[in-house]
């Protein structure tokens, strides 16, 4: 591809992502502010956004943060929260014939929910190119890191995020994402099983086991409901 075409593709990708780039700014600000309120320095908060770049798992980490930090529990919870990326990369990975092997892996390092969703839409319409994907992912990544830094720097001035409800921003984001996964009664069974198991585990077990319990119960529920449907049919 000629250089001018690649630039054009990059800008097209960035334009497609613009609303989501704007939307991630307040979430990054909240993350930085929450991190500082949990005792992280601005450097540590920004480093986490730079190296982890997965908002959901970063907010969960803040939820279960201890001093000193427990790396095993944090890595395990990041693994559980981000296990959905396995499905996303498996799905988009089959739609990247324009990518070289290494480019495919490099692209996956910047795979976030929003990037994945936009790339899937693009792949359904036309050929997904590395330049277009870079226009999607790279500015989004940079804004996430900068917003986290700004939030951490301003955190001390924002005061207690709980007083103005900002601590609820993350559960709210996940609530919206859950609604997006709704595909009928089967999803209802998954959600009910997951919520029940998670609440029980949360009441009786320490740490983040409630996430594993909920995930396992949800998957078990979908397999059981399918078996019952097959038995009835």
């Amino acid at each position, binding site marked *: 591809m000629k250089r001018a075409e690649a630039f054009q593709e990059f800008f097209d990708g960035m334009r497609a992502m613009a609303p989501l780039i704007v939307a991630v700014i307040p979430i990054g600000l909240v993350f930085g502010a929450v991190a500082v309120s949990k005792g992280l320095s601005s450097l540590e908060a920004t480093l986490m956004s730079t190296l982890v770049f997965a908002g959901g798992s970063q907010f969960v980490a803040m939820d279960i943060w201890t001093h000193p*930090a427990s790396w095993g529990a944090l890595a395990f919870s990041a693994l559980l929260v981000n296990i959905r990326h396995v499905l996303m990369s498996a799905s988009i990975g089959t739609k990247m014939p324009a990518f070289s092997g290494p480019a495919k892996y490099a692209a996956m390092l910047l795979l976030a929910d929003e990037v994945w969703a936009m790339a899937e839409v693009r792949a359904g319409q036309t050929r997904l190119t590395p330049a277009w994907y870079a226009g999607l992912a790279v500015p989004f990544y940079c804004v996430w890191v900068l917003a986290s830094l700004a939030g951490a720097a301003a955190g001390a001035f924002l005061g207690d995020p709980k007083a103005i409800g*900002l601590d609820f921003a993350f*559960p709210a984001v996940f609530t919206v*994402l859950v609604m997006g996964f709704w595909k009928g009664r089967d999803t209802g069974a998954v959600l009910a099983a997951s919520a029940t198991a998670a*609440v029980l585990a949360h009441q009786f077990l320490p740490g983040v086991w409630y996430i594993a319990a909920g995930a396992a119960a949800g998957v078990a529920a979908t397999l059981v409901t399918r078996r019952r449907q097959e038995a009835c049919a």
Partner: protein
Amino acid sequence: MTLDPNTFLAILAMAAATVLTRIAGLLVIRFVAIGPQQKRALEAIPPAVLMAVIAPTALVTGPAESLATLATALAAMRLPLLAAVAIGVFVVAVARALIGA
């Protein structure tokens, strides 16, 4: 501007776990044949994990949080992400102020 060694280790561990999940999908489609049963299980994972994460907040933290989760879910049916989140944050702040939690 400080960097605690335990915190740094935790960030690296989180980063490693996250990278693993991001490239695992590429390895899966290279080496594993995914049948309908496996596909169903994989498809159930995202909503199951997200629900598990929010369930304690949504159900057993307090009436303000439960009310705000419900408001966010209803708003999400009609409004874009950011608007629904703003409504959730607004409802939780108002409900906490009214209830005094």
